[in-house]
């Protein structure tokens, strides 16, 4: 006869209001195998836990059922309490009579009956629980950081400073990301490059950081603590080790009219180039679509001028493998395409703003480059069409953001702040100029943020109009911006010299494919999904993979940096142990009965099941079978559902247990 203890919680009024807790305890005591049944006001409190522990000891219990809240809330609490009394923690079960019962029912009598049913099922289950031991897996104390923007830089530096090796993979020729191209940052107006570039240099020189720039993650294998990552190092046509970064090559390059990606098309670059002077590594790369030697077989003047002999036109993509224990994803964002042509069929563009049609209608990142001291105009505000100083500039918020008609329902969060910043930077450079902002709402929550916006309005005289712009047209070299001021209730027409559109933030290109390689979820917009929006904002549902920065949601610099440090902290927690322990409630395959159909291999969402062979002592194959990798399995149970021969089962949720629960009910 099993000896099961049942402990029913009032949860203050939460359960007791709609469930007759005393009656539940009384009825449950009559169930076979139930040795003791008690109720208490707060079972999770210290005295409550003491009751559980005392009974385990006194009654020599084989299993425990706590009838209270969701197991997400307190299963760990009670398992820990049981463990202190020497009871294997996996012999503790919870019956959820709060979320599944008292909170959703109003008829006290029926709710009480249901609570009893739920407990009866849990008793049937716990009787068939087995003592389990946590799974231990070794940890490779090396981290991969994907993305070298400010978030990736911060995460890499923190992990490296803690004494662990970091592999930093960046798609562009230099690290630095979007922040390297910004002019000045809110709410302090300190120069973006001045605060970022020292960090970039730190990364470049850090003995614990291995940088792969102009590289992308090709494939990811393995599991938490033991990832094997294939990185594609794209052909750079420049030997980074030989090159001294002297600049002889890009000074002589004849292909000069290529739009600079770093300047968002506002400036030009040569075919062999470093994206910006402070690039890390300060080594050039050849754009193979623009290089005359690579496209037409002519020229090659850079090769002749290179004293170091670093140019290699025969260069090819290379694949390298890195072994790491944890992954931090920091792939950042891009801006929504404003024009009418959209690569993504789910999105619509803004024909009415004439972006792409009128040269002086630009997006906010383009404005950042125009106003930046390192930008194509040397920091002088000149409009793209004729290079004249604009005397009237209109900034439009929420272009794409919060616009269901265009397919993006979310707020991009940072635009209100940088719009205010742009009006200030503009006014500081063009004293007789007038900035206008059209906005839906001003969202400036954050330390010193609202004060900053007030400064833009009150000290620097930006005109804020609450309303949308319906159309932008061009007449005689002026942009005619027609909108509405909904506070004044009047249509507004402004003759502007330049218009800046605060385009929505979207996750960077390719993030969905990367997420699939890492088994990380993403939402309908492509932002990566955190494990829990409040309590696990850094973790993903793939063990050992963490997120930080704008790849998870729109974020500003301080938030990205904070989240990056948090991700680095999580990685260090992992690396502080020689081994990792994982929950043992995972799937297993009965290799004797497995028919090797591999339906489970195909359906496993975590690629945790592999094809294996059983061989005799002479090495002769006896049979093929599926086998679960305990490091990868997340215990979802999909394999159990698809297995036609019933060879797959889930520890802690065995089919026997589930059937016993159903039987106890009917």
């Amino acid at each position: 006869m099993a000896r099961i203890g049942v402990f029913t919680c009032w949860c203050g009024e939460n359960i007791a209001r709609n469930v007759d807790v005393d009656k539940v305890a009384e009825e449950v005591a009559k169930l076979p195998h139930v040795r003791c049944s008690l109720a208490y006001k707060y079972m999770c409190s210290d005295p409550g836990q003491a009751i559980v522990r005392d009974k385990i000891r006194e009654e020599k219990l084989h299993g425990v059922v706590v009838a209270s809240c969701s197991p997400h809330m307190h299963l760990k609490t009670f398992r820990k309490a049981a463990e202190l009394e020497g009871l294997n923690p996996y012999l503790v079960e919870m019956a959820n009579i709060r979320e599944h019962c008292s909170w959703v029912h109003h008829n006290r009598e029926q709710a009480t009956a249901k609570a009893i049913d739920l407990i009866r099922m849990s008793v049937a289950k716990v009787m068939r629980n087995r003592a389990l031991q946590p799974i231990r897996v070794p940890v490779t104390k090396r981290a991969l950081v994907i993305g070298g923007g400010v978030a990736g830089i911060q995460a890499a530096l923190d992990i490296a400073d803690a004494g662990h090796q970091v592999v930093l993979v960046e798609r562009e020729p230099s690290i630095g990301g979007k922040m390297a191209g910004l002019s000045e940052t809110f709410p302090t107006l300190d120069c973006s490059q001045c605060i970022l570039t020292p960090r970039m240099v730190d990364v470049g020189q850090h003995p614990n950081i291995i940088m792969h720039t102009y590289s992308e993650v090709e494939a990811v294998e393995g599991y938490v603590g033991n990832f094997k990552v294939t990185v594609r190092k794209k052909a750079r046509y420049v030997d980074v080790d030989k090159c001294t970064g002297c600049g002889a090559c890009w000074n002589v390059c004849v292909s000069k009219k290529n739009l600079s990606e770093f300047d968002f098309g506002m400036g030009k670059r040569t075919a062999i180039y470093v994206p910006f002077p402070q690039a890390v590594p300060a080594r050039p790369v050849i754009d193979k679509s623009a290089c005359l030697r690579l496209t037409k077989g002519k020229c090659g003047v850079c090769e002749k001028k290179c004293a170091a002999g670093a140019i290699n036109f025969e260069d090819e993509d290379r694949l390298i493998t890195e072994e790491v224990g944890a992954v931090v994803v920091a792939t950042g964002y891009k801006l929504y395409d404003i024009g009418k042509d959209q690569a993504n069929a789910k999105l619509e563009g803004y024909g009415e703003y004439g972006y792409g049609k009128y040269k002086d209608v630009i997006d906010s990142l383009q404005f950042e480059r125009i106003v930046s001291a390192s930008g194509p105009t040397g920091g002088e505000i000149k409009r793209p069409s004729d290079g004249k100083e604009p005397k009237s500039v209109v900034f439009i918020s929420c272009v794409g953001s919060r616009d269901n008609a265009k397919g993006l329902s979310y707020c991009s969060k940072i635009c209100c702040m940088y719009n205010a910043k742009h009006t200030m930077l503009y006014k500081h450079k063009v004293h007789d100029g007038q900035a206008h902002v059209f906005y839906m709402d001003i969202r400036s929550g954050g330390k010193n943020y609202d004060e900053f916006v007030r400064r833009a309005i009150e000290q620097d005289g930006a005109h804020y109009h609450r309303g949308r712009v319906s159309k932008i047209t061009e007449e005689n070299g002026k942009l005619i911006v027609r909108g509405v001021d909904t506070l004044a209730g009047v249509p507004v027409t402004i003759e502007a010299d330049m218009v800046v559109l605060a385009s929505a933030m979207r996750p960077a290109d390719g993030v969905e494919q990367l997420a699939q390689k890492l088994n990380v979820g993403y939402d309908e917009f492509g932002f990566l999904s955190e494990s829990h929006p409040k309590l696990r904002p850094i973790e993903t549902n793939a063990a050992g993979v963490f997120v930080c920065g704008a790849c998870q949601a729109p974020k500003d610099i301080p938030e990205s940096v904070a989240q990056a440090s948090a991700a680095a902290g999580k990685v260090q927690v992992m690396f502080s142990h020689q081994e990792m322990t994982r929950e043992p409630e995972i799937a297993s395959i009965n290799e004797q009965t497995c028919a090797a159909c591999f339906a489970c291999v195909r359906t496993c969402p975590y690629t945790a099941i592999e094809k294996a062979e059983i061989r005799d002592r002479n090495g002769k194959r006896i049979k093929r079978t599926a086998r679960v990798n305990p490091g990868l399995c997340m215990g979802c149970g999909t394999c159990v559902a698809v297995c036609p021969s019933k060879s797959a089962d889930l520890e802690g949720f065995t089919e026997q247990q589930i059937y016993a629960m159903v039987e106890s009910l009917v």
Partner: protein
Amino acid sequence: MEIGYYPGCALHGSSNDYERSVRACLGALDTGLKEVDDWICCGATAAHSLNQKLAVALPARNLALAERDGLDELLAPCPMCSMELLKAGHLLGKDKGLREEISGIVELKVEGRTRVLNLIQVFQMVGLEKIKEKMTRPLEGFKPACYYGCLLTRPPEVLRFDDCEQPESMETLLKAVGAEPVEWNYKTECCGAGMTMCNEDTVLDLSHKILANAEAHGANCLVVACPMCHVNLDMKQADIERKYQMRHDMVVYYLSDLIGLALGLDEAALGVDRHYVVKR
């Protein structure tokens, strides 16, 4: 080729010059029009401002008639009509319950699968090749400002026609027949539409801006594909002149007028001689 034809109230009334133009021009392109027998009002603004069910039922009855007569394509030269017909078709297509209810109301089975076309789409169906082949008199010296107004492209999720803010389809057609359409800014602005009855000042203001912008961008004529726009922009020029002391003298053509002229038809055959502002 023969396609269904839904004239709506305007083309059988105040804008019968438009009907004459459409019939003559399409006839010259071997495209016959089979008028929907026993058609009724599309509901226009009146219906959808008052009663949503009526706003579906009125156009639905016309769609049902077209379905009964086996007309897969239906030309509605008035954009208000084509929008109302499309909107009804759109709603009926996605809602089985509504289809059954409306079929009961209009006493005819309606599926909402008729392809409703505006005039531009019919010319696109005929094809640039065929139009060029039949062209006898390229439109040399014509610098039209193509005016789409509010309804030809809107609401975009119902019409799914051209770019709703920066349309180009009329320009493409007119370039093919030798005209030089101008770039201008009031392609999709409102002319004042039905306000012409109750608030003429608004119409005069809006139409004056449209005409002035076309002129400022070098247009020597205006092209429309809407009877209402034609009324406001053509007939009201005298009133605009009185109010703003500015004489526009801008000839306003229907799209079918200009293509018809290129096909060698004379102005009288197209009804151009019946416009208020005529070329002198």
